[in-house]
């Protein structure tokens, strides 16, 4: 049960966003800019970074939600998403993305864990400064979102068939206040 009184019919972060629309607006815009940009990293790569960090933070709602969004962008390839969670080194992804996931894993522990070697390795695999910037900020942002969701003990749907429905909604319409204002996808 959530720690505060929120709409029990809204899942996960959506109920928290509805509780506080004034903070929901910049949070939605941040997610939109970070995860739906086509400049540099692909949308699938961005969602995989978000999924991996959420998995490391043990946030069930977030890692399943963003994992399913990544599946949408990967045309149904759920195996790659599962590999990224469990052992990205053996996943069917580029060496550049592996180097960026390494940086994301460091950010999850703490900003100071990121080393010059980590960054140089990503650069050697072809990551641009913007790719590294975006990776650090996506990882940092999910250290926010994951704590927001679990810190308030948000409702976590146990019906796993609902996650792809919400994921398709995000893949199609993006992030923003519509995700708690409009009827939930069913």
């Amino acid at each position: 049960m959530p720690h505060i009184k929120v709409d029990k019919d809204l899942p996960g972060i959506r109920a928290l966003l509805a509780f506080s629309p004034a903070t929901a607006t910049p949070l939605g815009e941040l997610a939109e800019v970070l995860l739906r940009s086509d400049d540099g990293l692909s949308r699938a790569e961005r969602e995989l970074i978000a999924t991996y960090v959420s998995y490391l933070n043990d946030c069930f709602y977030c890692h399943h939600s963003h994992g399913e969004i990544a599946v949408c962008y990967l045309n149904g390839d759920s195996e790659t998403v599962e590999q990224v969670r469990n052992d990205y080194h053996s996943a069917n992804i580029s060496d550049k993305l592996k180097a960026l996931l390494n940086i994301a894993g460091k950010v999850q522990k703490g900003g100071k864990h990121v080393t010059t070697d980590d960054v140089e390795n990503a650069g050697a695999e072809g990551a641009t400064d913007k790719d590294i910037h975006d990776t650090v900020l996506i990882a940092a942002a999910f250290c926010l979102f994951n704590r927001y969701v679990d810190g308030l003990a948000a409702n976590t749907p146990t019906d796993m068939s609902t996650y792809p429905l919400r994921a398709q909604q995000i893949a199609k319409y993006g992030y923003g206040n519509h995700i708690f204002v409009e009827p939930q996808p069913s």
Partner: protein
Amino acid sequence: MAHIDLQNDLPGIRGPMLYSPATAKPLNELAEMLLRDDDNSLSRGERELIGTYVSYLNDCFFCQNVHGALAGYYLQCDIPAIDAIKKDYTATDISEKMKALLAIAALVQQSGKAVTKDAIDNAKSQGATDKEIHDAVLIAAAFCMYNRYVDGLATWAPQDRQFYVDRAPRRAAEGYVEYDLTK
């Protein structure tokens, strides 16, 4: 030296914010709403104190000094007083409600799942409303992001703590949205 070429020499979070204006906008709007909006029963000083404390726990020099100076400005206390709160808030004369909210913030800093029902119940018994608990959790979570952004890119920070004290009145007046990053 920062891990990437930020194309500017600004300290702390202002470096990557100038580098990436598209993400700076929502980051600043979130800070404005969380820390400075006046439609809130927690004072600006109390909210800056939560940001300061989490930044201290995350060992982020830039953030704990920026926000510590702002907390000092709003609460009309000096930096040694802010430092005493960071070191052991339970031994200071802040309100019992604030102590309970700082306890929640410290748990959020560890992990969302570390927040216990006991910690929440304690805050409620000290008079904290649902919105105050919501805001304490989101401020703490937000600083787990800002701190990682600042240190994850290895931005530089002025070491003279007076630098931050001197800037606090201006940031308090201008806020987080309507200001020139380069000044």
